[in-house]
C-alpha cells in the first residue's frame, strides 16, 4: 500500500517564476492538505482540498493556488515566486474532511534564487 507521494523531491527556481508541485494521497484517502515549512519552523497550513474544491485556507496570498483531480491527487501552484517562498512543502492526506489523522508525504524542497 503506497503512502503519500510527492514530486519532485527538490526544485530550484528563480524569483518571479512559477512552480507546480504534485501530490498523490495514500490509497483510500480523498482529502489533501498542503503545508509550508520554513527552515527551523513548524509546518504552516496553506489549504485543503476535498471533492475537488478548496475547503479551507490558511494565511497565504493568492499567489498560492491548488487543484484536486478526480483521482484525488493534487497540485500546488505558486506564482511570482519570492525568495521567502523557499521552504519544504508538505502534502498530507486523510479520509474525508473530518478525519483526525493526516498522513504526510516526504515533501518537496523548493529553493528560490
Amino acid at each position, binding site marked *: 500500500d503506497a503512502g*503519500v507521494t510527492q514530486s519532485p523531491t527538490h526544485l530550484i527556481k528563480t524569483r518571479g517564476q512559477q512552480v507546480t508541485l504534485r501530490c498523490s494521497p495514500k490509497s483510500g484517502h480523498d*482529502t489533501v*492538505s498542503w*503545508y509550508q*515549512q520554513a*527552515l*527551523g*519552523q*513548524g*509546518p*504552516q*497550513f496553506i489549504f*485543503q482540498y476535498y471533492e475537488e474544491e478548496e*475547503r*479551507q485556507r*490558511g494565511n497565504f496570498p493568492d499567489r498560492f493556488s491548488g487543484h484536486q483531480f478526480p483521482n484525488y491527487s493534487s497540485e500546488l501552484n505558486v506564482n511570482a515566486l519570492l525568495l521567502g517562498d523557499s521552504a*519544504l512543502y*508538505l502534502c*498530507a492526506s*486523510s479520509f474525508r*474532511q*473530518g478525519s*483526525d*489523522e*493526516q*498522513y*504526510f*508525504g*516526504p*515533501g518537496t*524542497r523548493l529553493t528560490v534564487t
Partner: protein
Amino acid sequence: SQQGEEDPQALSIQEGENATMNCSYKTSINNLQWYRQNSGRGLVHLILIRSNEREKHSGRLRVTLDTSKKSSSLLITASRAADTASYFCATAHTGNFNKFYFGSGTKLNVKP
C-alpha cells in the same frame, strides 16, 4: 494565533535516559497530535490524544493532556540514538478540526 509552542526548543540527552517535551496552545482543541521529523523530511505520526482524554501510551511514548492548562507533554522512555529528530505537536481546534496548527518543534539529540 492558534499556533502551539513546544518547550524546550532543543534537548540533548544520553541514550537510555527519558526525554520530556511540552506543548502549550491557546484556544480549545478537538485533539492534539505529536509528530516526528527526521532531517527536514516528512512528518511521521506518533500519537493522537483527544480533548476528553488525559493520558495515552504507545510503546515507549507517553502523552498527557491538561486542557485546563492548555498543555500537553510527550515522554519518550529509555531513549535511543534513533530517536534523534525534531518533535512537533499539532492541534486541531474546536469547530475547525481539519486544519492543524503546528508549533516550532523540539529538536532532540540522543547521544550514544
